[in-house]
């Protein structure tokens, strides 16, 4: 990938992203989400009762009877951070040789904005959720130090 073009990011549709703890052997659209993948607000109210910091609140959902508990990853990047789903656009200037050798320049273009990116773990395995987010936070902090941000 050679560049990311964020100029059209404001017009990209807004979504909620979910990182789920399973392998789903399908890529593509589905109309089943509306009826079957909705946050369990009743349970979330109970679990978030003592959580004052909104960025630390947990989300609860279900996949085929398995309860999954998640937290938003984006606050780790700082307040108001967004994530983008991008598609790769091969440069129109690429020569046939570059295309053949896979050396042509590629631009990543946002096609969707993710206001939240929720990382889930299975119910019973919440310690891994905390551990993953903590490691990720450390990674971002280290990254900032290396790049003097």
């Amino acid at each position, binding site marked *: 990938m050679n560049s990311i073009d964020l100029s059209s990011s404001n017009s990209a549709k807004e979504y909620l992203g979910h990182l789920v703890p399973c*392998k789903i052997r399908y890529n593509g659209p*589905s109309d089943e989400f509306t009826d079957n993948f909705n946050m369990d607000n009743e349970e979330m109210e109970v679990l978030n009762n003592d959580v004052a910091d909104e960025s630390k609140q947990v989300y609860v959902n279900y996949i085929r009877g*398995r309860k999954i508990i998640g937290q938003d990853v984006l606050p780790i990047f700082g307040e108001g951070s967004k994530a983008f789903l991008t598609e790769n656009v091969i440069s129109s200037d690429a020569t046939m040789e570059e295309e053949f050798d896979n050396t042509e320049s590629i631009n990543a273009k946002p096609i969707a904005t993710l206001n939240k990116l929720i990382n889930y773990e299975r119910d019973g395995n919440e310690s891994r959720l905390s551990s993953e987010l903590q490691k990720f936070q450390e990674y971002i902090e280290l990254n900032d130090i290396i790049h003097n941000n």
Partner: protein
Amino acid sequence: MVSLPPTVLTSLGTLHTKTYYSEIPEVIKNGVSSSPVILGVDEAGRGPVMGPMVYGISYCTKEYQDTVLIPKYAFDDSKKLTDNIRRNLFSKMYDQNGDGTGEIEIDGVGYATTAITPVDISSGMLRYPPSQNYNLNEQAHDVTMNLIQGLVEKGVTIDHVYVDTVGPPVSYQKKLETRFPNIKFTVAKKADSLYCVVSVASVVAKVTRDIILEQMKSNENEILGSGYPSDPKTTAWLAKNQKQLFAWPQSLVRFSWQTCQTLIKEDKHKIGMVPIEWEEDYINSKKNMSKQWTKPKTDNKKKVITLDNWFL
């Protein structure tokens, strides 16, 4: 218009387990009778793949059981009674107007139910890692003890509890006696046929479950059957309503049942089920989880990009 039983109303419109306690009968609340309070415990809907598992308790003085319930009413193991008789018997135990104006014929009996929803049953049984599983027996025992505890906290002095069980009675009885040292326990198979107060609990639980299941229909004409995997109407519903990705509505179906797992895994109805793999699928696999999730070495740009390696 006849209102739904209060035990049902408490459990509608929620994904989660709910408990209802009736008013404590005056004769018990005011200590009018010197007769000891006895309590029966039974469940309905342990085996079905659909709908809640309902635990019911009923309690009264021993005198009320012997002089009113046994001679005047046909309480028995709920499976031996017809649906109409069961509903009719239960309807005499609550205010059918739903507003406190209706007459309660069987006014010496108090009752309570806990309806454990399919979501709670499945998510408990399918926790990960497997050592965290909350199996059906544990769920059932905890709910029973909580129902009794709730009544104790309301100030009812219980003398003797009769429990119908499908599991081994001896160890269960010991568990209950340890938790409630001041109460006598009799845990027995078929207790709903042997003790009238258990028969009442059996009717309360069964009617509550049946009506909750009825209320879960998406339309009046939908045929769910009894909810048992052996019921052809239930299997027909499962076949007709299975979806490729999420399979069935989580509010209705117990995904932790082997019936569901098999229908999903083997795609018996040939609907093109999307395979979903969980960590436990790899526990006994020769390919460990790390290998499964490692990025392939080939750098094929046309391959679909996934987030499998996010943290690796």
